[in-house]
């Protein structure tokens, strides 16, 4: 009977609440809330997808946040039965109060979803387009993140509005809803850390919510205001209702809710504390005990123990390290990173040390105004490079053999076992070498009988895509939607600026700076804490994880190529590309890197490289990716601003491209190449023209007959 009553009540109330909602002006206001930002930010359907998506997503998320205000708008609807006598008409024939409450809440959510449906569909399409079906999950998570508190609030407000109902169910659900809302609201950021999938979304560039973004601040301000407003509203409502007829039970409810209101006010203070906590977390003092990289890079033969074996466990949720090491030779002095502790114990000929702890990271906070100005990203950006060859944060881990996560960093390990507990994802682990792997329900275990002596050992991450390459292990790729200005800004500018700053401030010697490279693929550096990773560049490191460094190396080479004064750069570039194309990975001599680097710097100093020329680097970077048949190039052209690159149209069409053409021309006649290039820029600036137009222009204006593209196109 009760089930039948519930169904009947739910069906009737849902039907007519929805109908009345759709007819109310508030709903159309809501539609505008969702639709207008999208319309206003959609300047042109021909806009590149990614920037457009970003422009859509952010307003949508903002609008969704604004949605949380709409329950107040909808109070008018909730108070439909609150007019004198009207609630009597309604409730006197209500067979199931719980069903009515549920129906009102569900109808409210459905109305909101209907209002947002066009925008949601659009963002879903974009998410799937850029992230594949994985994007569906992320999209759902993002919406869930946004909608969950809205639903709670909504439900709570419905129940508060119907407080007079003579039914205890309402009060119970009300109390539960409010408590859950408060739990969720008290500090979303910290709560989200309890659930790593949401953390990824929260820190995703898609939503633009990140620890350093203003959106997060506003988000929290919004919650503060919402809680305070809701509290005042509840109290005001109760005050007003107290003048109306109340039964005995209702009086008791009113008292309960008044206490809840007081609790709300107190809890509302909690997010405010979150600001302080987050601010504190963003700045780390330089650890005076920081161990210079050179000290942990390579152990000397005398200081390294014999028969050194390590067995270590990383708990990626608790960020706890626990392990033990055994070795022979008591003279060696073990040294662990701050936060890890253990005491060696001698057992016969063998030394054994159990160690454990929560590592503390010595970080240097470096203010990078150049980045902000140049990149227009985050004006208050801090860079926190990790210098010790490993890091270990929520959802991300990166180990170099030389990291002090084991007692003798830099010393050869005979046998190494790494156990990973609470992996955030099972497909985001990259390892060097060929360890034996055992996977269980709770942990993955890697066993190296012959671990690499140095270089990257293991990486865990989540924001990038992982691609299996036959015979070459895994590759980590940047998210598809990352576009050139970001690539440049995230991967290049911080790197250079950081190094310069560190050198200037004496934190890093010149020698040290030259041994650092950017591990750009492992993390998504924009969002800071586990962002920029600097690790020593060594030949072995590259051999251990070649593709991780290819982009970096390619970038260096491309920079050299672009500078007109270094003919060797071009040849080097072409040779390297050829080698990469044939999958014969080889590393150019370090000296070439330095040459390229110096040449680029020299150009910049002599102001021979224009800003446009500098800006073309990402395009060249992409070109490299394209030549490497990196899947990133499949998506990037649509999203990139190629105004600095002549070859833009051809990149998309995948026809013989101007860059190839020019490169081939250069290899035939370098002087002519530069002459043509300079003249073209003088005439057209950064304008794109077709290859045919380019050839015609060269013939007419320069009286230069260009060779046929097919004749000069390099092997592809």
């Amino acid at each position, binding site marked *: 009977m009760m089930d039948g009553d519930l169904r009947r009540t739910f069906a009737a109330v849902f039907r007519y609440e929805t109908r009345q909602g759709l007819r109310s002006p508030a709903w159309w206001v809501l539609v505008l809330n969702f639709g207008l930002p999208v319309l206003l930010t959609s300047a042109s359907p021909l806009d590149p997808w990614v920037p457009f998506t970003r422009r859509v997503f952010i307003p949508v998320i903002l609008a969704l946040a604004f949605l949380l205000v709409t329950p107040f708008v909808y109070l008018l609807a909730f108070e439909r039965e609150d007019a004198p006598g009207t609630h009597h008409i309604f409730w006197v024939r209500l*067979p199931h109060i719980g069903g009515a409450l549920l129906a009102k809440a569900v109808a409210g959510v459905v109305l909101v979803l209907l209002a947002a449906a066009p925008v949601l569909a659009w963002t879903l399409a974009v998410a799937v387009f850029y992230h594949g079906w994985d994007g569906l999950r992320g999209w759902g998570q993002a919406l869930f993140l946004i909608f969950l508190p809205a639903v709670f609030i909504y439900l709570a407000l419905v129940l508060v509005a119907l407080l007079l109902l003579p039914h205890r169910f309402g009060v119970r659900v009300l109390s539960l809803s409010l408590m859950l809302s408060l739990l969720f609201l008290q500090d979303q950021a910290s709560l989200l850390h309890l659930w790593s999938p949401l953390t990824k979304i929260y820190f995703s560039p898609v939503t633009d919510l990140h620890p350093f973004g203003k959106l997060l601040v506003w988000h929290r301000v919004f919650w503060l205001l919402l809680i305070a407003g809701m509290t005042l509203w509840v109290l005001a409502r109760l005050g007003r209702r107290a003048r109306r007829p109340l039964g005995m039970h209702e009086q008791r409810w009113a008292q309960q809710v008044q206490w809840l209101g007081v609790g709300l006010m107190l809890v509302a203070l909690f997010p405010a504390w979150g600001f302080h906590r987050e601010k504190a977390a963003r700045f780390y003092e330089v650890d005076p005990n920081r161990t210079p990289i050179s000290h942990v890079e390579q152990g000397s033969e005398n200081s390294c123990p014999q028969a050194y074996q390590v067995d270590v466990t990383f708990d990626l949720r608790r960020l706890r390290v626990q392990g033990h090491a055994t070795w022979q030779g008591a003279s060696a002095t073990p040294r662990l990173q701050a936060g890890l502790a253990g005491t060696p114990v001698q057992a016969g000929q063998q030394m054994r040390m159990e160690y454990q702890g929560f590592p503390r990271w010595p970080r240097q906070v470096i203010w990078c105004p150049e980045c902000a100005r140049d990149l227009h990203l985050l004006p208050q950006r801090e860079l926190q490079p990790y210098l010790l060859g490993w890091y270990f944060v929520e959802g991300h881990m990166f180990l170099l053999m030389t990291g002090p996560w084991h007692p003798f960093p830099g010393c050869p390990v005979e046998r190494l076992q790494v156990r990973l507990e609470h992996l955030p994802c099972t497909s985001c682990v990259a390892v060097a070498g060929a360890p034996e792997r055992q996977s269980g329900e709770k942990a993955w275990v890697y066993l190296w009988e012959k671990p690499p002596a140095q270089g990257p050992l293991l990486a865990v991450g989540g924001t990038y895509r992982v691609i299996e390459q036959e015979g070459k292990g895994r590759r980590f790729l940047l998210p598809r939607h990352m576009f050139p200005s970001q690539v440049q800004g995230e991967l290049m500018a911080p790197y250079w600026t950081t190094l310069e700053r560190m050198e200037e401030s004496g934190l890093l010697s010149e020698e040290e700076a030259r041994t650092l490279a950017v591990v750009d693929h492992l993390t998504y550096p924009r969002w800071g804490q586990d962002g920029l990773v600097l690790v020593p560049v060594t030949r072995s490191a590259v051999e251990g994880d070649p593709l991780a460094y290819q982009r970096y190396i390619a970038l260096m080479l491309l920079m050299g190529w672009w500078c007109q004064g270094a003919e060797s750069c071009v040849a080097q570039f072409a040779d390297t590309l050829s080698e990469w194309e044939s999958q014969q990975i080889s590393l150019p001599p370090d000296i070439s890197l330095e040459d390229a680097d110096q040449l680029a710097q020299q150009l910049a100093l002599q102001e021979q490289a224009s800003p446009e020329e500098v800006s073309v680097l990402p395009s060249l970077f992409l070109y490299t990716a394209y030549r490497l048949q990196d899947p990133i190039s499949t998506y990037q052209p649509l999203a990139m601003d190629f105004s600095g690159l002549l070859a833009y149209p051809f990149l998309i069409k995948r026809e013989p491209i101007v860059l190839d053409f020019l490169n081939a021309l250069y290899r035939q006649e370098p002087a002519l190449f530069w002459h043509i290039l300079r003249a073209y820029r003088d005439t057209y600036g950064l304008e794109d023209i077709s290859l045919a137009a380019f050839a015609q222009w060269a013939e007419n204006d320069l009286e230069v007959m260009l060779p046929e593209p097919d004749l000069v196109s390099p092997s592809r």
Partner: protein
Amino acid sequence: MSKQTAAIVCESVIYTYPKTIQPALNDVSLEIPPRGIYGLLGPNGAGKTTFLRLAAALMEPTQGRVLVGGYNTAQEGDQIRRLIGYLPQEYELYPTLTGWEFLDYMALLSGVANRKNRIRELLAWVGLEHAAHKRLRTYSGGMKQRLALAQALLTEPPILFLDEPTTGLDPEERLRFKDWLLDYAQAHTVVFSSHLVEDIALLCDHVAVLRRGRVRYQGPVADLVKVVEGKVWDVILTREHRRVQADGVVSIATRVLEDDPGRVEVRFLWLVDDPPPVEGARPVRPTLQDAYVYLQQVGTK
């Protein structure tokens, strides 16, 4: 009347609204028989609406108990809601719904079988077929009242509570409504609250007269006049000296004589056993109105 046969039993009920001291109902005991129209008569604030809300299980008594159809309103509200129809004194209908939709909504909630026919029938009865598909925000006060009445009758409830139902109806509608109500009450119990004595006199078999939360009279309407028999007098006075001033006199009505506009007939209650000290006064046959005034002013239970 035994409690088993009474449709509604109200036992020593006290109800006090929050933040008030004076009870809205004070030690009220009533027995309302099944079938027929039971009137609740009293001025504003007498406790009529409070009683109906308690009987409709919308509120719980502070003390005492109310049984409707044998169910206790404090514990068995669900069962009671299935028995009753309720027309509140004041209400607002959903302005964005049409008349038809409103009735359909209420019918869905009440689980009315064959509801389209029932709605059509009720709309015809209240004369709103032509406005069935207009939004309620466009309805006049009388139309809303008729529609609200229709919703109260959707389930053809055995017990019908009507709180000042004739308010807003024009004279013709009132007549039609009263006529219908008399028919309906032949097989159903109707509790009808009003402050108009003539409505009660026309419709009700039994009546309870309330004053400031207390029952001043309950019983057959026909017996109500007995409480003032021998206490109602009238006298012809000049207009200048029309006030009857003496201890024990309660003025009821003053009427200008049609054939002599300079003089008036004054009707008054005389609460003392001796003849009134007014020259020319004569006793007259009391009416319900006299009894009502008596009960409101000085009457005893």
